[in-house]
């Protein structure tokens, strides 16, 4: 977990092809944003749905990366927070007739509180023990959602069907395209918030606790508070994503939120890149598209192919896709610009 040193900020090299690295980065981000906005108008509705899920997963992985990547608390239980967020949105829309956009803050707050509360006992657990405790949460979640005394809320085994929202203001786009843009906007806000949080005082405290808890405490970092808050914020991100996911899929049911989902999230942050904001996007692309791709290669044993992909990624890019790209860029810049 001490790969922070390896993935530390890029050494700023003054100029490359007449522009500073920072300018190149800004150009890259603008190009990416422009591409993301035009994307839904170039591809079929089904693809729009798939990319919409990529955006949703990106939000989850951002949240999980804060907790596991930056703060060093391994969670195998984020599927549970995703489920809570999804159910919060579905119940509010279906039982109380709330508009879809109004459910997001509620899902976020509910998950923040549950994440914070779960973070309290998690303070005492480390490493494998924490992984088991969070895994227990995600394994238990489908059973809890099926519990018969809350069936009138959750719809029991059948789950809840949600109606897809129409684009507002009489916009001439399909509902899928609208939802995609809506999710993109939410993602942009949450991305900005995460970036601000992680590069500031709180972010530094999180990393300090991960790298050396005792030294962090000696420097005056309130370890317990930061750890539980990180748990809460991480759950908040996951919950908002869960709500968005439920609206996009238009359906929630206990068995959509199995342990596999949580494991996929963890795979996503490792493949994308631990403790990296851009890694969330790569990881989301991986967990959305690689299973389908594996299925196309071999119908007989798709998960074996998926496993081989996992192994290949871990061997070839031990610091995740983000780390790999950072290394490539670093080499490129160093070669072209003699120091």
């Amino acid at each position, binding site marked *: *977990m*001490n*790969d922070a040193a390896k993935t530390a900020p890029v050494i700023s090299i003054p100029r490359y092809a007449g522009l500073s690295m920072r300018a190149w980065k800004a150009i890259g981000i603008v190009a990416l944003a422009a591409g993301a906005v035009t994307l839904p108008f170039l591809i079929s509705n089904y693809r729009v749905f798939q990319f919409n899920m990529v955006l949703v997963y990106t939000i989850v992985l951002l949240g999980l990366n804060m907790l*596991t990547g930056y703060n060093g608390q*391994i969670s195998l239980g984020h599927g549970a927070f995703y489920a809570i967020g999804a159910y919060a949105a579905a119940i509010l829309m279906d039982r109380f007739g709330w508009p879809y956009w109004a459910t997001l803050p509620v899902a976020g707050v509910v998950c923040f509180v549950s994440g914070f509360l779960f973070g309290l*006992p998690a303070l*005492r*657990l*480390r*490493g*494998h*023990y924490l*992984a*088991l*405790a969070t*895994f*227990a*949460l995600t*394994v*238990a979640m489908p*059973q*809890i959602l*099926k*519990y*018969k005394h809350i069936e009138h809320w959750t719809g029991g085994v059948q789950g809840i069907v949600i109606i897809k929202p129409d684009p507002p203001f009489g916009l001439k786009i399909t509902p899928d395209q609208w939802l995609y843009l809506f999710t993109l906007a939410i993602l942009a806000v949450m991305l900005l918030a995460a970036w601000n949080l992680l590069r500031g005082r709180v972010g530094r405290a999180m990393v300090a606790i991960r790298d050396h808890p*005792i*030294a962090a405490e000696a420097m005056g970092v309130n370890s317990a508070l930061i750890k539980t808050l990180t748990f809460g914020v991480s759950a908040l991100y996951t919950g908002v994503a869960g709500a968005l996911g439920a609206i996009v899929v238009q359906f929630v049911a206990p068995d959509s939120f199995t342990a596999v989902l949580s*494991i996929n999230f*963890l*795979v996503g*942050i*490792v*493949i994308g890149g*631990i403790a990296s904001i851009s890694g969330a996007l790569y990881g989301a692309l991986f967990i959305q598209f690689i299973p389908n791709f594996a299925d196309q290669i071999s119908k*007989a*044993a*798709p*998960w*074996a192919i*998926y*496993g*081989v992909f*996992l*192994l290949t990624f*871990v*061997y070839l890019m*031990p610091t995740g896709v983000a780390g790999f790209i950072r290394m490539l860029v670093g080499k490129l810049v160093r070669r072209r610009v003699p120091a």
Partner: protein
Amino acid sequence: MEAFLHQVLSGLATGGIYASLALALVMIYQSTNHINFAQGEMAMFSTYLAWDMINHGMPYWWAFVCAVAISFVAGIVIERVIIRPVENAPVLSVVVVFIALLVIFNSVAGWIYTYTIKTFPSPFPQQPLFGNRFISSHELGAIGVTLAVLVVLYMFFRFTTLGLAMRAAAQNQVSSRLVGIRVGWMLALGWGLAASVGAIAGMLVAPIIYLEPNMMSGVLLYAFAAALVGGIDNPFGAVLGGFAVGVLENLVGAYVIGTELKLTVALVLIIGVLLVKPTGLFGKVFVTRV
């Protein structure tokens, strides 16, 4: 009272299965400090191998021994070929490698042997022993084999030079190398032993829960819980933890909440134990040096 006794005894029987898989987990943890998420699937695959051999007319105990031997070799090969390259990688990368192994074994087993549920023979007689009504002779036999494996492992680690070398390699790699222990091979050997113990667990559990590629997912979770409750670095703790989790699961299901939320309550209790004793009931408490 009789019903209570029945619940306790059948809990002990399933607990024996959790215990044997937990033992395999502890083996790998002791020699490598990793928790192998693929342990259950490896055990499942070994069981399929045994099933295949029995179906081809091999006597049960021969197939049993062959499956254990093949698993031993396979465990070593997996360590050398797949785990070796990520030895120094961050913990999470290793976890992903384990997840990859898990899905590969699961998928390949389903591909070769299909997902239809198969019965697996038991080496123990059909009639319950001693005319009791509470526990079948297979369940009793499974508990016996688990305890025997535990004793054999204890003797191996306690009284043989190789066992001593393995313990040394796990505890302090640098010093072990200095006294001439081949640490890499000790790790591989640990994997081999764990795969064998897993194979035994798989063959013991298969007659009860039937043979299919996903048979181990539930068992593995309880085995994790057992290993952690007992203390991940203590084989005896793991076995005791296994029995405790089995009994607890049954009693909670029968008397407290009903089978609906059985899993949830059992897991909550396990976390409760961990909150009071964060390194498990019999685990070593590590003192961190600053």
